[in-house]
C-alpha cells in the first residue's frame, strides 16, 4: 500500500508553510500535496519520500502527524474509468473517505483513494483488472 503523510494543522496563516518547512528541513522531498480544510482546521496530506521517517520527524517537532495507508490506482485514459473504479468499490460496500489524483514523472496519472477497506482490497482490485500503483513508483520507501 501507499503510505501518505497526514498532518493536523490549525487553520492559521503560515501553518502550511511551517509544516512544509519541517519536512524540507528533514531533507525529505514532497511529490504531491493536498490540504483538506474547514473553517477551523486543516489536514495536510502529502506523498513524500520515506513517509514513516517524515511522520516521526513531524511528531518530534510537535505536530500531530501520522502515516495513512491509501490505495493508488492508475487511471485509464478512457471516459468512465474512474466511475468504473468507484462503482466496483461501492458494490463491495467499501466507503471512500476521500480521493485525489496525482500525475507521476512519466506523465501517467494515479488516483489516490482513502477507503475503509482492509489490505486485501488491493489484491481484489488487481484481480479485477485495475492497475495498482506501487509505492516505489511514487516515492522512496523507508
Amino acid at each position: 500500500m501507499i503510505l501518505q503523510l497526514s498532518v493536523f494543522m490549525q487553520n492559521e496563516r503560515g501553518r502550511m508553510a511551517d509544516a512544509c518547512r519541517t519536512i524540507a528541513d528533514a531533507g525529505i522531498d514532497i511529490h504531491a500535496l493536498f490540504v483538506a480544510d474547514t473553517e477551523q482546521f486543516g489536514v495536510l496530506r502529502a506523498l513524500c519520500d520515506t513517509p514513516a521517517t517524515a511522520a516521526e520527524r513531524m511528531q518530534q517537532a510537535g505536530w500531530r502527524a501520522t502515516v495513512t495507508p491509501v490505495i493508488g490506482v492508475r487511471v485509464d485514459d478512457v471516459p468512465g474509468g474512474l466511475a468504473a473504479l468507484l462503482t466496483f468499490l461501492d458494490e463491495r460496500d467499501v466507503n471512500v473517505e476521500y480521493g485525489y489524483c496525482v500525475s507521476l514523472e512519466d506523465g501517467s496519472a494515479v488516483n489516490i483513494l482513502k477507503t475503509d477497506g482492509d489490505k486485501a482490497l488491493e489484491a481484489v482490485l488487481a484481480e479485477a483488472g485495475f492497475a495498482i500503483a506501487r509505492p516505489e513508483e511514487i516515492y522512496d520507501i523507508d
Partner: protein
Amino acid sequence: MYFQPEIETMPREELFQLQLERIGETLRNAYENVPFYRQQFDEAGVRPEDFRSFEDLQRFPFLVKQDMRDAYPYGLFARPNKDVARIHASSGTTGQATVVGHTAADLRNWGDCFARGIAMVGGSADSTLQVSYGYGLFTGGLGAHAGGEAMGCTVIPTSSGNTKRQVQMMRDLGTDILACTPSYALFIADTAIEMGYDPAKDFKISAGIFGAEPCSQNMRDEISEKLGIQYCDVYGLSEVMGPGVAMECAERNGLHIAEDHFYCEILDPDTLAPVPDGEWGELVITTLTRECCPLVRYRTRDVTRIISEPCACGRTHRKIDKLRGRTDDMLILRGVNVFPSQIEQVITSFEEVVPHYQIVLSTRGPLDHIEVQVETVPEFPFDEVRKLEDLRKRLAAELKGNLQIAVDVKIVEPKTIARSEGKAKRVIDNREAGNR
C-alpha cells in the same frame, strides 16, 4: 443501619420545627455572647426575636472567612475558656489562621455526625476504623476518630505518613473502614499493590470515608476499584465543624446533611438571593447546636445544590450534591453561572481527547463568545475531516447539554494548551471589561 434512627429518619415536619427552634437558639447565643454578632445584627437592624420563619433568616447578615480571620483568636467564641474543650485551626496559607473552639457537647455532636456516616457504609461497633487523616489542628484526624469512638468502633489512629506500615496494619489488623483524604487513599492503594497485594481481594476492607479535598469521578472509581470498597464522600470544613457536616449514603446520589445540627441555604453567589432546590449555588451554613462558635449564615464559597427528593435509604435529611467547585472559580457567561469543573467533566468523559483543555472567552457583539480548546489523543484518526467534525459536534452538544449555553469547540494542535504541574491556567478571559 442507622446510627441515630430517631433523628436520621425524623419526619420532615418535625425536623423543620426542630431547625426553627434551634436557629432561634443560635441567634440568641450569638447575639448575647459574641460582641461581633451583636454589632452586626444591630447594624442590620435585626434582633434574634425577629426570627420566626426560615424566610426571616435572610434578614440576618452573612459571616465570611475574613470575619473569622479578623476575629483571631477568640473574637467569635461564645463561651468562656473554662467551657472550651478543644481548639482547632485552619492553615493560614492565605492569610491569618482561623481558630475554632469546641465545648464538650460540640465534640460529642461532631462524633455523632461522623458516626452516622460510618453507619452509612455498613459500619458498627464491630468495625475496625483506620484513621489515616492527619491528627492535629487539622480537623480530619480527630473528627474521624471521634466518629469511630461514638460508634464504638475499634479505632486505629495511624494518622498520615509511613504508608507501608499503614498497609501492613490495614492487612494484619483487618481494617474494615479507612478514613483519609482521597489522594492519600489512592496512594495507600497503590502502595499496597506495589507491595504485592491486591487489597480488593486480599484485605478485609469494605468501605472508605474520604473528604477534605476535591476528587474527580474518575479518581473515585479508581479508589473504589483498587480497594474494593463502598466510597463515602464526607463534607465538612473546620470553620463549621470538620468532617461530618454531610455524608454520602449507599445510594451514592448526594450527601445527607446533618440537618439537626446545620441549616443550609443555597444562594446565587452573585445576587445572594436564594435559588430553588435543585439549582446550583453557594452553600451557606448556619450551625444549630454549636455552643462555642455558633455560625450565622457562613458563606462557604463551596458550590453545590440541594437534592430534596426522598432518599431510598430512608433518611429524611436532605442532601447536597457532590461539590462542583468554589465560587471563586465561577464564570458568568451570557448570564449563566458556569464552572470550569463542569467543562472538565465533559472533556474527561471523551476518550478521543486528552484531559488538557482551555477556555477562551471573548466578546462578539453584545454577547460572550466561549471557545473550548481541546487536543485529540495521538491515536485519533485525524486524517479524516469527517471524524474530526463529528467529534467537535458531539463535544459541543454534550457541553451545551451540561452548561445550558452554546460553546464553540476548537480542536487545536498538540501542546497548544500549556501543561502545568500545579494549577493549570484553564481560562483565558479576553472579554471587554464591561462584559466580565
